[in-house]
């Protein structure tokens, strides 16, 4: 078991290394750097000026060396100006003069770089944004997982029944509704003062505000309430729910045909007790893996929902960084995203082995 985990972590580290290198390569292509030079320097620079600007700012070195610097395994570049004698370098800035600057400053040392657009340390930007997204994710999971398990178990306990067919169709319908569709429908139906339910409810006097829910969640960043946070949470939860529900249903249906369930039935155990005491525990092993693997999916969902509802979390930051050519912010965002995917995969693998005693990895 220990060896299995070690090997998985090794593969994970290798994957993370490859992926960050690809992102590094794609964000550091010459046209990107040229654009960066022109935004930071002067928009009318000639090609030679761009090249010399890049050289002066440490972008002239070979790609692999710069990747090593960014990672923190190669010493950061330093450059002495021939005329003024001023030393500039990767690890040198206003607060740390050249004499005190460390030799290495990369991701491994905890230095994530500097966002050129927001004019702030990347670490402080991403940290706050991740917290906001964490809040969104937490509530989405808190709604999605119990609802999905309930639907799946109810559908799977009597395979082929009317309940099963209607719940399965519902589950299929939710997987067919991506976030940007369900979000739009929710806003029109519940958060528009012109259409949907809100004008109706308002004229009946059931709600005081003009809309039932708020279509923009900007205020939920500081103070999340039922009114401004329900729609984004529901939108994320709905799309992920169907898939977990279908997996739970399949797993439950399989367990219900097992020998020990038949034995329990013949013993005269009531149907309710069979489901709750005998079937449920075994049926929930497979959904656990699926739930963990939903994290990466939710990441895409979070980006869409945060853009649609104007919630400035991690997903919104990623979109901004990508469209503004904010290289170091984008790199950090991609590490976070890749890590989330890999860590959840690892947890799902290990958890599966722990939960299912039939699998033994030697």
């Amino acid at each position, binding site marked *: 078991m220990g060896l299995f985990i070690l090997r998985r972590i090794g593969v994970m580290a290798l994957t993370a290394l490859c992926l960050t290198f690809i992102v590094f390569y794609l964000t550091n292509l010459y046209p990107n750097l040229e654009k960066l030079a022109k935004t930071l320097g002067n928009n009318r620079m000639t090609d030679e000026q761009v090249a010399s600007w890049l050289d002066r700012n440490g972008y002239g070195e070979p790609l692999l060396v710069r990747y090593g610097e960014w990672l923190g395994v190669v010493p950061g570049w330093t450059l002495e100006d021939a005329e003024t004698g001023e030393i500039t370098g990767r690890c040198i800035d206003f607060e740390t003069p050249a004499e005190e600057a460390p030799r290495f400053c990369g991701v491994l040392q905890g230095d994530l770089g500097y966002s050129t657009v927001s004019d702030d340390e990347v670490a402080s930007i991403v940290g706050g944004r991740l917290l906001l997204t964490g809040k969104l994710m937490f509530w989405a999971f808190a709604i999605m997982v119990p609802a999905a398990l309930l639907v799946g178990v109810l559908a799977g306990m009597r395979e082929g029944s009317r309940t099963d067919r209607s719940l399965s169709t519902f589950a299929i*319908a939710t997987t067919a509704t*991506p976030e*940007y569709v369900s979000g739009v*429908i929710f806003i029109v139906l519940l958060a528009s*003062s012109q259409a*949907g339910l809100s004008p109706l409810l308002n004229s009946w006097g059931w709600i005081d505000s003009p809309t039932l829910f708020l279509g923009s969640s900007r205020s939920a960043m500081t103070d999340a309430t039922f009114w401004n946070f329900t729609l984004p949470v529901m939108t994320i939860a709905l799309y992920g729910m169907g898939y977990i529900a279908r997996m739970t249903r399949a797993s439950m249906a399989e367990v219900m045909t097992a020998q020990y369930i038949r034995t329990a039935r013949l013993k005269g155990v009531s149907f309710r007790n069979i489901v709750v005491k005998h079937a449920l525990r075994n049926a929930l092993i497979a959904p656990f893996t699926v739930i963990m693997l939903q994290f990466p999916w939710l990441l895409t969902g979070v*980006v869409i929902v945060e853009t649609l509802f104007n919630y400035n979390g991690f997903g919104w930051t990623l*979109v901004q960084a990508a469209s503004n050519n904010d290289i170091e912010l984008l790199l950090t965002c991609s590490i976070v995203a890749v890590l989330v*995917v890999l860590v959840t995969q690892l947890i799902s693998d290990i958890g599966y082995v722990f939960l299912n005693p039939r699998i033994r990895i030697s």
Partner: protein
Amino acid sequence: MEALTWTGLLGPILNPLMLAAFTVFMIAFVSNLGLALAGIRPAEVEVSLDGTVTLAKTPSDYALMTMKYATLIFVVCILLYVLQGIFVPGLEQKGILGAMAQRFLPVWIALIVLFTISAIFRERLGLYGKLFESPVGLIGFGLVMFWVFTAIFANYIGTHPPLEQIPALRNQNGPPGSALPAGTEGYPFYLLGGDNLGRDVFSRMVLGAADVLTIAPLATLFAFMVGITLGLPAGYLGGRIDTVLTFVANLVLAFPVLLLFFLLVTPEIVAAGIPVYMAAVLFLFPIIFFVVLFNSRFHTRPPTRNLLVAITLVIGAWAYLSILSDPNSDVVNFMPAVLDVVPMDGNLLIVFVSVVFVNSPTVFRIVRGITLDVQTRDYVAAAQTRGEGPWYIMLWEILPNARGPLIVDFCLRIGYTTILLGTLGFFGLGVSPESPDWGSTINEGRRLLTLAPHPALAPALALMSLVLGLNLLADGLREESLKD
């Protein structure tokens, strides 16, 4: 001219009826739910000792019956609206629903013809014929074919050109059924209203279907070619090939999809030519697939083999080069315009490549898994004993026997690709800013969502119904193929 009403002539009669049917349905549904929670279940047939059969109806049965009839009335009302649209003269009498039903006339005819012919010959149609025994699959198939025929007849169905703007209607976001200003030629109404730029929402939705339904199935097909060509050897040969390919597939799968899209679509990366290089690699796979397919089967008959391989290579190379060559680009414009049969402009190519790239690893994993399972069968052992080559066994023994799960996954994956395309459009990374494809239209419409919902709602519902249809179809196919 006055704006159209939703329901036209029959509206005053049918609308209250539909509302009543809906209310009755909801009451029956809730009471059925309550009864189920209280432990009252529908009656089951009981055989008594003297051989008579009794069925004592419970309240739950009556609730279910009510639900059935309420649904029936609802469906009949909708059908009447469609018939009203086709047979009642005059747009004002037809109403918006009727007028739309009339525009979709070619689709209705095509659907009726298709379903009649398929139902007659269903005994001989294999898996497709069996679909007619699964109601869920049939509904899904109906939805999918509706959009397929809409895409085919898009030019006859749309009332206005998708890019035509009427200046007087700009910033109006005219509601559904609004009349065009007097003196405008052509169709006198915007059936589903106008968008912010004064374009017709209905026509854009219809022509968007044509866009979506050409890109999504083609991209899925390419992803399948890539996935199959790599997945078969990974599963069958195993060893180092398997390790490397699986690692690469996991690498792509661990990559957050949206980040990849953003990286690939940024102008700077396009300028560096990355998407074109990726296309150059990915589009090689279909050619390799067909060459190996024919070669492995016919290598004992050189004349046939040579002919088939030559045809594949000529057509393949021509299509390959003309897809890669872009008349608007300075970098990769090497084909003379006469020969450039597939006018794929740069942006479309990028969208296509990203979608294929994201989908192929999943297909690879599925194909590899099935191959691992199928290769233990006796017919594979028989082929090995006969001395067949590995590629023959993979492509002519394993692949045909893996078709069931692959067809089901193909349907699901078209739906997933449609969602991905929509996502791209939603972030403004779509085919072109003006394109009527659904994702881009939703993106344009969402800014004014709370004021004018119709420009975003129409494509959103269209996309949902298409993907729902594909998922239901896949579910029905899976169910029917498991029955054997």
